[in-house]
Structure formats: structure tokens, C-alpha cells
């Protein structure tokens, strides 16, 4: 019945993930970026290239700050949104908040712990780099180098001074040979004699191979002049790098300048200086420079210590902030992810609770949560199907019940259902109509309690008991009996109405009992009619035979004895014979009427014009017509009917006579005879109706019921066969007879209540029309209904 695809493989697509998760994706990307930067940051620290790290520190720092700010903004927005949802009582927000809080806690706690440890570690370890011992060692190294170089310098100064004095004493002035000897003696690299303005007078040494020896700065000459000797180390300049230091070490030297004392004090004698240059061992120089560099670096770092600490801790803090914010965002995103199917489920449950069984969204994932939503959706579908099924069967049951109710309501038979305690459970309108008692008002009470039904109820109950105890053969599941019900129709009991009921009883499940009954009064009446006609036929036959001999005998007596008797005797004879003849005649009439009723002549059906018949019969009632008591109201162009003219004439005659009899005692009595054509909805003539209306007292209720039975009459004289004959003829013609009172029926005493609106009406409907092929085809009921 309902095979449209439901959930499952072919089910509707689940709604697209809300923008919330898209948002979560953006945030996650941001967090990943942040983590990447942090990693780069940490990589900078990890690689043994602090210079690189330090160079990029600042912009990395600011990028991270920016990122952290973005994250803060996002988190604040997300948090506000979440709180807003919670405060609004938005569905699922509490779960979301809870999950987010849990995840955030899981993310933040280790981060904070690591941060605390790292903070301590960094600040301590930076301090440990700057050790007093290390500083002392560096100082000592530096001093060592300086002391060595100083020793060399002062040694060379002394030697140079002595050499200069010797040179001055030996007047043989400066000869290259002695100078060379001196150089070897001092193991100097270069020895020169320069003039007062620094010009080289004589030089010897390794560097003389091409180039002139380095010019002595005048400042040194001045000092030498004043102090006799001056010396200094050269080429030990700071150049920063280790390679430069090594190169400098190669060229490191000590230079000493001493004034050569003049022995002859001749004026104009030019003063001379002895310049001795000695190399410093390259290894020594390089080491000394290396120590210097290390010392410088160390001092620099010591000075930058607080900055370094701030830098590292700043990095750590940023990393923490990024990690925490990332964790928070991930927490929100993850809790969203996790809560999604749960929310879906909860929403579905809420919908189902509201009675919405529409197909539920399915969370597309392969895990148990997805399975849960899938199962829930299937369950909902099944539930919905089951509910629909129940609904359908309820509708079916309702329909069946309504059907049954309609059938019960329209059943002519009365139906009463008793429950196990004998109380009335169900009553149909038929029962009320037949019993003429408001039975439905007695629902839930016993039938005995209904006024006038005590005896009936008792009898029925006894019958039920009897049936239950010892079912008779042939009535296995039900019993059937007829009951005569007597109703006190009037208070004084003058008229007792009685109906005959055919009652059928059956046991129903759970001790309930069913009683079905029919009013068979009419049936009984018909049977009575049948019986009467049989009696009448026999009586007529038996009685009529002797009547003619009786009359003939009496007339013969008068004829024979008439002349013989005289006087009083004759008179008596005549009177007696007349009486006999009259009475026999009356008897004959009676018998004829009986015969008419019992054995009507075989009908011969012809096409008849009802109006013609009426006119023909009314011709017999000339006086009545003239006096205005009888009038005819004939419809024109009535279709011909199929009927027996003689019998119908009898019918009309009987009806008119009855009516005239009914109004005989009234001065203003009127009888009207009407013919008309009854038409159906499409305008075709369905039947021809003949109606006789009078304004007499009408029929009493009792008579109305049994008017068609013989010997039921309201007239003082009359056989009571008139209407019985009418009924019989009408039956043979397939016509329907209806008797009704016009206006208010007469009361029990037969007194008319209101003159204006009273009277009786007898109508005959002939549905067998002469040209009725078409009509009969249209109205099959009309013809068959007659029987």
C-alpha cells in the first residue's frame, strides 16, 4: 500500500552540515597555521643557529601575536555564541558546552603544566650559562694572553734599549753587517735604523725583500725620544671572526723603538732610532685573540641575559597561548563534531515525542554514532509504519462499526444486545419503533425495568435460560419464538393494543445475549385475512344453498295459504313471509359480499382509463354530487393503467361509499375524489394515484392498523369487508393502498378536535401502466414492490 521509498539506502539525503562546521574548519585551519608557526619558532631555537632565530624573532613574534589575537577573537565570538545559545536554552547547547569544556580542559591542562615546567627550565638554564667560574676562566685566559704579550713587549723594549746603547757606544756607526748580526742576536724579524723624522736609514730583515719597512708613527718616535725606549704589540686588532683572528695572528708582532744615544755631541748630528720588530708566535697570537673573542661574546651574552630570558619566555608564552587557543578551538570544533549526531538524535527524539514521524536525518559516518542515528531513523520509520497500520485498522474498524450501525439503524427488525448481567447494551432504532418505547434511554438497565415490558422480559429471559440449559434440537445457536405483547393503550383499558413479535435469541461471546425481534402483527393479520376468506367462502357456499329453497318455500306458503287464511291469520302469514323473504334477501346480500371478498372473479386485465372509471362510478351518486357532498378533481391526460374494470369499479364504489358513510352524519360533510399522476425526478409518470378524501372523523389508531382486515369497521352497519376487498383488489393490481388521517387524529372517544383539519384519506397508487415498458424498465422496484 505504502511502498514509497523510506529511509535507508534510498532515503533522503541528510541535511548538509551547518555552517557551524564550516566555521570549525576555518578555525582549525587557523589553529594549524598557528601551530606551524610555533613549530618554525621552536625549530629556530632547536637549530644551533641562534643568530637566525634572533634575526627572525621579531616578525615571528608579531605574526604570532596577530595570530593569537585572531584566535582570541574567534574564541571570544564562539564562547559568546555558545553562552548565548545556552542562555536562550537552544537545543543541544548545554551538551556542546559540556563537551567543549571537557576538551578544552584536556587541551589546556597539559599545556599549562608544560609551560610551567618550561618556564622554570628556561629561566634556570639561562642563569646557569652565566657561571662565575666560566667568567673567571675567561678573565684568566685573557689575562694570561695579555701578560704573555706584555712580557714579550717589555722584553723586547729592554733588549732594544741595550742594543741601541751599544750601537751608540760603538762609534763605528751603523753598518749593515753589525745590524744583521744584531738582528740574529735578537732573533728579530726586522731591524732598522730610522732618522728623527722617521725616514729609514738602514734596514735589515725578512720584510726588506722589496718593500720598505713599515713607517714608524711619529707618536712612537716622540715617546722614544722622551722615554728612550717604547714598545707595543701590533696586529692584534679585533676583527670579529675566528678566521680574521687567525690571519691577524700570523701578522702579529711587537715593535720596539729606542733612541740611539749619540756619543759625539757634534751639533747638527742627526738623532737616530733603532726599530726592532719581532714576530709573536702565530699560535700564541691566535689563541690570545680567540680568548678575547670568546670573552667578548660571553660578556655580550651576559649583558643580553635578561633580554634572552624575555625572548625565550615570550616564545614559550606565545606557544602556550597559541596551543591553548588552538586547543580551545579544536575543543569547540571537536565537540561540535561529536555532538552533531547526538543532537541529531535528540532532535529526532523530540520530534517523535511531538508525534512527527517524518523521516529523520542520518549522520553520515561509519562509526557507532552514525549507526545510532541510522538505527533511530529506521526505528522511526518502523514506528511510523506501525502507527499508520494501526490508524488504518482503526479506520477500518470505525468504518465497519459505522456500517454495522447504519445497518442496525436501518434494520426494520429490532435488535437488543444484553450484557452478561442482563442489562441493555445496544438498542437499535428498530427496537424502539417496534416496541414504541424509548429503549435507548434504558441503556445499562434491565429490560424488566422498562414499563410494560416486565412480562415480556421475563419470558424472554426464561427462554434464554432454557436455551442455555437444554437447547432444543435444531436450534443449536439460537432460539426463536413468538410473543404477544399487550399494551395498555389507554388509561381505562378500553382499547388494548397488541403486537405480535417474532423473537430470536442467540448467545454472544462473553456472556452477552442478542435478541432480534420482528413485528409480525401484519403478517398475522394477513394470515387472519387468509383464514377469513376461506371461512367466508365456505360459509357463503354452505349458507347460500339453503337460502333459495327457504325463500321459495316461504313464497310458496304464502301462495298456497294466502287465499285460505283470512283475517288476522292472513295478515300474520303475509308479515311472516315478508319477514322471511326480507331476511333471506339480507342473508343473500351478506353471503354475496362474503363471496365477493373470498372469491373474486378471475381478473381480466386491460388498459383502463382511471378517470373514465371514476366518472362512471360517480354517475351512481348523482344526488350526492348534486348536493355538493361529493366532488371529483380529475387530472388530465392520465396514462392508462393495467387493470380489471369490474374490480376497480368495485374499489372506487367501496371507497366512495365508505367516505360518504363517514360524513353522513355531518351537515358539511365533503368527499373529494382526486386522480393524479405521480412523477419521478426525471418527469416520467411513475404511477397513477387515486385519492379519496373526506372530512369525516377519521380513523382511530386501532382501526388504522387493521383497517384491511375483514370485520374491522367504524360503521354501525356494514360488514367491515369494504376495505378488505379494496386491499385485496389493490394487491392483485400491484397497487399500493395507504390510509391516513388528515390533521390531528381523533382522540380515544372518537371526537374530532378541529373541524378544519381532519378527515381520512385513502390513496391508491397504480404503478402498472399500460404503456409502461419504459417506465417498468426505469422503475423495477415499483412493479416488484407491489408484492
Amino acid at each position, binding site marked *: 500500500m505504502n511502498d514509497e521509498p523510506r529511509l535507508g539506502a534510498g532515503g533522503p539525503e541528510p541535511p548538509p552540515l551547518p555552517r557551524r562546521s564550516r566555521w570549525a574548519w576555518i578555525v582549525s585551519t587557523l589553529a594549524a597555521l598557528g601551530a606551524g608557526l610555533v613549530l618554525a619558532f621552536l625549530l629556530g631555537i632547536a637549530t644551533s643557529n641562534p643568530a637566525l632565530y634572533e634575526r627572525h624573532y621579531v616578525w615571528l613574534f608579531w605574526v604570532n601575536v596577530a595570530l593569537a589575537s585572531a584566535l582570541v577573537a574567534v574564541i571570544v565570538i564562539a564562547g559568546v555564541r555558545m553562552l548565548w545559545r545556552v542562555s536562550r536554552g537552544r537545543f543541544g547547547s548545554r551538551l556542546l558546552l559540556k563537551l567543549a569544556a571537557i576538551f578544552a580542559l584536556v587541551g589546556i591542562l597539559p599545556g599549562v603544566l608544560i609551560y610551567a615546567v618550561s618556564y622554570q627550565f628556561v629561566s634556570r638554564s639561562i642563569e646557569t650559562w652565566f657561571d662565575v667560574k666560566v667568567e673567571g676562566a675567561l678573565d684568566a685566559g*685573557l689575562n694570561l694572553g695579555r701578560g704573555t704579550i706584555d712580557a714579550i713587549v717589555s722584553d723586547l723594549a729592554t733588549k732594544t734599549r741595550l742594543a741601541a746603547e751599544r750601537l751608540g757606544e760603538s762609534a763605528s756607526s751603523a753598518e749593515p753587517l753589525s745590524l744583521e748580526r744584531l738582528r740574529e742576536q735578537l732573533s728579530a724579524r726586522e731591524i732598522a735604523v730610522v732618522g728623527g723624522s722617521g725616514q729609514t736609514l738602514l734596514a735589515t730583515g725578512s720584510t726588506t725583500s722589496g718593500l720598505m719597512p713599515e713607517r714608524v708613527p711619529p707618536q712612537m718616535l716622540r715617546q722614544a725620544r722622551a722615554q728612550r725606549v717604547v714598545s707595543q704589540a701590533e696586529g692584534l*686588532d679585533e676583527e670579529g671572526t675566528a678566521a680574521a683572528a687567525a690571519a691577524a695572528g700570523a701578522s702579529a708582532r711587537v715593535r720596539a723603538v729606542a733612541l740611539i744615544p749619540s756619543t759625539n755631541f757634534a751639533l747638527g748630528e742627526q738623532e737616530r732610532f733603532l726599530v726592532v720588530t719581532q714576530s709573536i708566535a702565530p699560535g700564541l697570537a691566535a689563541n690570545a685573540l680567540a680568548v678575547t673573542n670568546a670573552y667578548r661574546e660571553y660578556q*655580550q651574552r651576559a649583558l643580553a641575559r635578561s633580554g634572552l630570558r624575555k625572548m625565550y619566555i615570550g616564545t614559550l608564552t606565545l606557544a602556550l597561548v597559541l596551543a591553548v587557543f588552538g586547543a580551545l578551538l579544536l575543543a569547540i570544533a571537536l565537540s561540535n563534531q561529536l555532538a552533531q549526531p547526538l543532537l541529531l538524535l535528540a532532535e529526532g527524539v523530540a520530534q517523535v515525542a511531538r508525534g512527527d514521524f517524518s523521516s529523520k536525518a542520518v549522520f553520515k559516518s561509519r562509526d557507532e554514532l552514525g549507526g545510532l542515528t541510522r538505527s533511530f531513523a529506521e526505528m522511526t520509520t518502523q514506528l511510523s509504519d506501525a502507527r499508520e497500520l494501526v490508524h488504518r485498522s482503526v479506520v477500518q474498524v470505525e468504518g465497519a462499526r459505522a456500517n454495522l450501525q447504519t445497518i442496525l439503524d436501518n434494520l426494520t427488525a429490532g435488535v437488543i444486545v444484553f450484557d452478561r448481567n442482563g442489562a441493555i447494551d445496544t438498542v437499535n432504532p428498530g427496537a424502539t419503533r417496534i416496541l414504541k418505547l424509548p429503549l435507548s434511554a434504558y441503556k445499562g438497565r434491565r429490560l424488566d425495568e422498562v414499563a410494560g415490558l416486565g412480562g415480556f422480559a421475563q419470558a424472554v429471559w426464561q427462554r434464554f435460560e432454557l436455551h442455555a440449559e437444554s437447547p432444543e434440537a435444531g436450534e443449536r445457536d439460537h432460539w426463536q419464538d413468538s410473543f404477544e405483547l399487550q399494551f395498555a393503550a389507554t388509561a381505562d383499558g378500553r382499547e388494548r393494543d397488541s403486537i405480535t413479535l417474532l423473537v430470536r435469541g442467540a448467545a454472544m461471546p462473553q456472556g452477552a445475549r442478542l435478541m432480534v425481534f420482528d413485528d409480525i402483527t401484519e403478517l398475522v393479520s394477513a394470515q387472519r385475512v387468509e383464514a377469513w376468506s376461506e371461512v367466508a367462502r365456505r360459509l357463503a357456499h354452505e349458507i347460500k344453498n339453503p337460502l333459495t329453497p327457504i325463500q321459495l318455500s316461504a313464497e310458496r306458503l304464502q301462495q298456497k295459504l294466502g287465499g285460505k287464511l283470512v283475517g288476522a291469520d292472513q295478515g300474520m302469514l303475509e308479515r311472516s313471509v315478508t319477514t322471511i323473504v326480507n331476511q333471506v334477501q339480507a342473508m343473500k346480500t351478506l353471503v354475496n359480499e362474503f363471496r365477493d371478498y373470498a372469491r373474486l372473479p378471475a381478473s381480466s386485465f386491460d388498459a383502463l382509463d382511471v378517470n373514465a372509471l371514476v366518472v362512471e362510478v360517480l354517475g351512481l351518486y348523482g344526488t350526492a354530487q348534486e348536493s355538493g357532498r361529493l366532488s371529483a378533481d380529475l387530472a388530465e391526460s392520465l396514462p392508462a393503467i393495467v387493470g380489471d374494470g369490474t374490480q376497480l369499479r368495485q374499489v372506487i364504489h367501496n371507497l366512495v361509499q365508505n367516505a360518504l358513510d363517514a360524513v353522513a352524519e355531518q351537515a358539511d360533510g365533503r368527499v373529494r375524489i382526486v386522480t393524479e399522476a405521480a412523477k419521478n425526478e426525471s418527469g416520467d409518470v411513475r404511477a397513477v394515484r387515486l385519492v379519496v378524501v373526506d372530512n369525516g372523523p377519521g380513523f382511530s389508531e386501532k382501526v388504522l392498523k387493521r383497517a384491511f382486515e375483514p370485520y374491522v369497521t367504524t360503521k354501525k352497519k356494514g360488514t367491515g369487508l369494504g376495505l378488505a376487498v379494496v386491499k385485496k383488489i389493490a394487491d392483485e393490481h400491484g397497487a399500493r393502498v395507504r390510509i391516513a388521517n388528515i390533521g390531528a387524529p381523533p382522540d380515544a372517544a372518537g371526537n374530532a378536535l378541529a373541524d378544519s383539519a381532519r378527515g381520512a384519506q385513502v390513496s391508491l397508487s397504480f404503478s402498472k401502466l399500460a404503456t409502461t415498458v419504459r417506465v417498468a424498465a426505469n422503475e423495477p422496484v415499483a412493479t416488484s414492490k407491489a408484492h
Partner: protein
Amino acid sequence: MTSLPPHGSLRRRSVLRALGIAASRAWFPGLWFAGAAGQPAGAAEGELTSFEVVRDEDGVFLGYSVNFELGKGPEDALAKSVPLFFVAEAEIYRDRWYWRDRRVAHATKVWKIVYQPLTSTYRVTTVGGLSQNYPTREEAIAATSRSVRWKVAEAAQLDDGRHYLEFVYRLDINLLPRPMQIGIAGNPDWQLSVKRTQRIA
């Protein structure tokens, strides 16, 4: 040369510069961490003992002499053989009434002073690579703190309009190693800066 009366554009420049300095200070994250560690109000003050701008057919020449006391921090650092950098910067602006004044010339001199403990000398190196040793700190600093006839701009760079020269002499900590910058950021000892703005005749 006498200093000129205050001029609107000069004011504007100096305000901008102050902002720039504030920004450069905020730049240092150390400040951000440590909070405002100090105010430049307590900075070591220096003074210009002489200042002369000469414009002739060869160009614009600047002669100056700064006299200042090194703060305790830099002095200590210098004694520990940490190199210090002194920068002299001269910029010439052309007045523009409709917009910011245009910079027409820019000249910078950088000196690096380092103490060499091995020989107990102070070595001064200029940007050009020339270096010289001095036996005492005072001599070394004196060598960095004056210039004579420093050519700031070619004659062609200036037109007939009004020009002025902004001169700054400072201890430049931006050339120090980064951690040290962070460590000393905001320290008034290190905030040595001498300025002069002079209208060019």
C-alpha cells in the same frame, strides 16, 4: 650659525619623529613583556658644543662636536669589550607648504668602538672600514663625536627653495645583538641622543 625661530613644518617633523621613536620603542617586545621599564626622560643627556652648516658651491657641509657622558650601562658594556655603535645622521628637507616636506639628501656616519683587552686599546672603525686604535676611551669617543666639514649633500641636490637640516647623533642600539636589544630596551642609560634642526642659509 644661529638657530632659526620655530617653524610650523619643523614642528610637524619633530612631532612625527617623536611618534616614530615611540613606535620604534614599542617595537621591542621586551618592552611589551617587562612593561614600561623606564622613560627616556632620564636618558643620558648630551650637548652639541658646536654645530655649523655651511652651504657653498660644492655642497652642504656640516661641522659639529658633541659632548656627552656615556651612561653606566654602555660604559660597562664597553669595558667588557662589547662593541658600541654611534650614528650621526643628517637629513636635508625642502619646505613644501602643500605636503610633507621632501627629503632631498641623507647622509649617515656610523662608528664602532670596541675595547681590545689584549692590548688595552680602543679601536674605532668607521663605515668605510678605516680603523684606528686609541689608548684611552676618552680619545676614542672624542674621535667619534666630532666631524669637520662633513659633506651632507651635493650642491645640485638643493634648489632655490627653503631647506633645513635635521641632525641626530645617537648611540644606536639597533645594531647590537637582538637579545641585548631586548634586554636593554627602555633602559634610560642607553637612550643617548642629540638632535638639532637647522635652517640652511
